[in-house]
């Protein structure tokens, strides 16, 4: 076990196979080892959690559990709440659905009762939990973060061990500030080369999922490395780590570097260390990258020089192809059997052999924890500037947080979107999962910058194609998918 040395310190009786203090360690191992609060007699690790992010959908039952058992939140100051999944993104003055309203009020009440800070509806810092974490400086290298949401892997972009948990585990963290964990495996994904113009971080991660499949990373923590990753901004790195779960991985991570430190140091991030404490922190963060010669359980290299924009055609994120491809034949998809592909094509209303660029869209969604940050909106705005959305296409642009909205409006992006014919909204998860009224109607086809193309995800019967913000914006204007690299 990776925590061997610590296990011996804490439990002298437990046999240790390796003394890892002298062995090269990966980024993951370094963070894991620093958070072993104990090893259970059965060998399970008690992993200490530095930050716990919560939202309205997966926490009320956990708080109720605490209340019923007379337990408290152990470290309320390490727990931060927001509302994102279920909130309206148009008219914020009233929540029409009484059940949604009750859920939002439940979170407010529980936060008050248990002393948890809440960035609720109407707060200038409200937003998608994985967007506000980094904005607030809650997301820091070397720490552990959990949240009752599978896209918690986003925070791994900072060299953070961050992963999604269920409601029972949310309750466990609230009560104990720890989680019982088995040690995951490590999986290094090296991206070599340089991205061509019009090809993005979204395409890098979709390509990987297409290669390893949606269960390819199950039980593993991915570490993304290589020149193509180093060249990415923090926001692009977040896009990659965000979709680690779509490859089945427990978490995805990128070693912190100057890009990371610059992001944390710039702007006002109330929870990040400041001044001297920041210098000290950076010195520590510089020790985190994987040591030379550190061993991984699996490794994979992807050359991005020839990478094309990616587009999903099916009902699983692994059903993905180059934009230049055609709808596949049911027998021609590695990793999926004929029946799976037939069902997916039937649901998506697609005929094998159709060029993907022939597919017309009814709806375009730009937003989500995958692609709802300021850089995503800027890149989409460049495409929309001076152009008009195709007739009959509905375009929703939903900033990931109220800070992003404010910043975008400060830069005039909202005007660009509105002039082109897009709807400009308040912050929330919105049509990524359609829990609020932002949903597709049956058989509507959507170019979406979100993360899941599951059946019914964006609305019952709705058909989702996952793409980058550039590809989504271009589809909005053309009325169908285009190869953004050659489109004018």
């Amino acid at each position, binding site marked *: 076990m990776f925590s061997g040395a610590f296990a011996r310190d*804490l439990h002298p009786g437990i046999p240790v196979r390796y003394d890892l203090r002298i062995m090269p360690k990966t980024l993951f191992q370094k963070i894991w080892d620093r958070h072993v*609060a*104990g090893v*259970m007699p*059965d*060998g*399970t690790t*008690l992993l*200490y959690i*530095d930050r716990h992010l919560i939202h309205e*959908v*997966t926490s*009320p*039952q956990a708080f109720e559990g605490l209340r019923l058992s007379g*337990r408290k939140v152990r470290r309320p100051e390490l727990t931060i709440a927001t509302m994102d999944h279920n909130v309206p993104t148009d008219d914020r003055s009233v929540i029409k659905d009484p*059940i949604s309203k*009750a*859920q939002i009020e439940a979170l407010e009440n529980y936060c008050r009762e248990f002393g948890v800070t809440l960035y609720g509806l109407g707060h200038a810092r409200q937003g998608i939990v994985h967007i506000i974490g980094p904005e607030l400086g809650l997301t*820091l290298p*070397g*720490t552990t973060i959990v949240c*009752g*949401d*599978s896209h918690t892997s986003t925070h791994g972009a900072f060299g953070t061990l961050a992963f*999604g*948990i*269920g*409601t*029972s*585990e949310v309750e*466990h963290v609230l*009560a*104990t*500030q720890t989680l*019982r964990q088995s040690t995951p495996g490590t999986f290094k994904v090296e991206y070599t080369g340089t991205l061509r113009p019009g090809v993005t971080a979204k395409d890098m991660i979709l390509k990987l999922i297409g*290669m*390893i*499949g*949606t*269960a*390819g990373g*199950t039980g593993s923590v991915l570490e993304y490395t290589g020149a193509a990753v180093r060249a990415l901004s923090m926001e692009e790195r977040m896009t990659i780590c965000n979709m680690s779960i779509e490859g*089945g991985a*427990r978490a995805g991570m990128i070693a912190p570097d100057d890009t990371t430190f610059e992001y944390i140091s710039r702007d006002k991030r109330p*929870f990040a*260390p400041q001044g001297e404490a920041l210098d000290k922190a950076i010195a520590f963060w510089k020790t985190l990258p994987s040591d030379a010669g550190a061993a991984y359980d*699996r490794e*994979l290299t992807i050359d991005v020089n020839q990478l094309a924009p990616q587009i999903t055609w099916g009902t*699983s994120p692994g059903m993905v192809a180059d934009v230049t491809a055609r709808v596949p034949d049911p027998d021609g998809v*590695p990793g999926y059997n004929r*029946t*799976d592909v037939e069902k997916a094509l039937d649901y998506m209303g697609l005929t094998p052999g159709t060029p993907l660029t022939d597919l017309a869209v009814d709806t375009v969604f730009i937003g989500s924890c995958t692609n709802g940050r300021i850089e995503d909106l800027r890149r989409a705005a460049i495409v929309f500037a001076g152009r008009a959305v195709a007739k009959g296409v509905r375009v929703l642009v939903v900033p990931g947080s109220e800070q992003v909205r404010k910043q975008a409006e400060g830069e005039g992006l909202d005007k660009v979107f509105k002039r082109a014919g897009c709807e400009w909204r308040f912050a929330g998860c919105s049509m990524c*999962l*359609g*829990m609020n009224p932002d949903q597709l109607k049956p058989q509507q086809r959507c170019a979406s910058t979100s993360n*899941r193309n*599951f*059946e*019914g*995800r964006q609305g019952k019967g709705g058909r989702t194609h996952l793409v980058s913000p550039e590809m989504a914006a271009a589809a909005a204007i053309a009325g169908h998918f285009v190869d953004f690299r050659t489109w004018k």
Partner: protein
Amino acid sequence: MQPFVKERGIVATLDRANVDTDQIIPKQFLKSIRRTGFGEALFIDWKRRPDGTPDPDFALNQPRFKDARILVARNNFGCGSSREHAVWAVVQAGFRTVIAPRKTTANGEVPAFADIFANNCVKNGLLTIELTEREVDQLFAVVAATPGLEATVDLAAQTITLHAATPVVIRFEIDPVRKDHLLRGLDDIAMTLDYEPQISAFEKTHDAQMPR
């Protein structure tokens, strides 16, 4: 939590891979602030046709699978969202066991169940059993040939016994930690709180060292 020792019940099959938690329990049911009331909503968008009537083609609508307690599906069951509501729905619809195959791919073998889903199952006394693809194929075949097929899942012995004309016994492997939790119906939080002094001691050093 209800312990899982030995359970007998009807076996239902669902011939789909990558069954995601959005299908198991669609988003509109995530607005509830309770832990109950999800059973009826299990696979609701597959169960019902667009006009709201039951879809006779959906496997679990078959009368032979009524009151089933063991669900057999294909690889990567429970992928996607971390929503524990999915596990609540499976349990509240009457299932005590879900069986799926590990899958051999070009990149090695991939587990049968998505990570977070499998963790959530343990917390709710739902047993997940990983078998080989060949064993799951066999299960599908026996179920197809034997209407009303019942099976006994014995967790202590790690066996599934199919009560077919010729009984079949399939042995399965399970992580010993998960097995112990399920057999005893343990309350994780109470157990962890026994380590309170250790957590406090760790916290003291950790808080001083970890920039956050």
